[in-house]
């Protein structure tokens, strides 16, 4: 069965791009959240296998959403996918439980490889 992914990004363009990459590589995109609040609530209802998480978003940013999702489900697999690649941001995300950190702009292969590695089991 295809692995179920929840995409989180405030930019429609990024949600469309990520959805195309993921669908073409055999993943099922079960939800698209446009801010942190939506992502946390969709995580609870959809129970996806993996979440992609932007950081700079209105309402609730991706670091806060990552923390809330990990509080709800300590085993949640969240991959950051953001233009904010500073070292302190990467460290904060990894400490908060993110499994990988992809800096935009990215090549599609970078996303696919990250997901394959994390969802291999």
């Amino acid at each position, binding site marked *: 069965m295809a692995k179920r992914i929840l995409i989180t990004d*405030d*930019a*429609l*363009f*990024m949600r*469309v791009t990520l959805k195309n990459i993921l669908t073409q590589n055999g993943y099922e995109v079960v939800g698209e959240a446009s801010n942190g609040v939506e992502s946390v609530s969709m995580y609870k209802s959809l129970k996806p296998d993996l979440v992609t998480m932007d950081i*700079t*978003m*209105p309402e609730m940013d991706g670091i806060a959403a990552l923390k809330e999702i990990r509080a709800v489900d300590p085993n949640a697999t969240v991959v950051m996918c*953001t*233009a*904010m*690649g*500073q*070292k*302190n941001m990467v460290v904060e995300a990894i400490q908060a439980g993110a499994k990988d950190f992809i*800096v*935009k*702009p990215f*090549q599609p292969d970078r996303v696919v490889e990250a997901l394959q590695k994390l969802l291999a089991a």
Partner: protein
Amino acid sequence: MKVEYVSPFAEASVNVIEMLLNIRPERGALSARPQIFTTMQINIVCGITGDIAGLVIYGMSMATADKIASRMIGAPVVTFDGLAASAIAELGNMISGNSLSLLSAQGYHCDITPPTIIRGSNVKITTLNVPALVIPMVLPDLGEVEINVSLQERMTQAA
């Protein structure tokens, strides 16, 4: 405004445009802007907060915005709709984000706000007490993108 705040934006623009659009932009000469300036047709406004604060505005013509968005989406943009606007905004977000990574290597830690798009070439923008510097970027076949950087170091005062 110090030029050292501006160089990261020039460097990040070249890197992001190369990777995203597969073309090598040509960087023009840096110049100062008066405190009130008139916008181009499409303007992506990114707020910067933290050790350095202010605004970065990426301006371009409608034709250039259409061409850039078409290349990002991978299909021609017929009308500048929500998806095209979002693509252009994301370009600004990526350049700003990558610039902040370079600034953080210099010891300045900042954050960005989600981008806003202002459409209309007759809009006047005033950056108040912070002058703007402009970096013109020529994108082969696509047109010109003007990067207006208006940033100021936040004074940290001892109590």
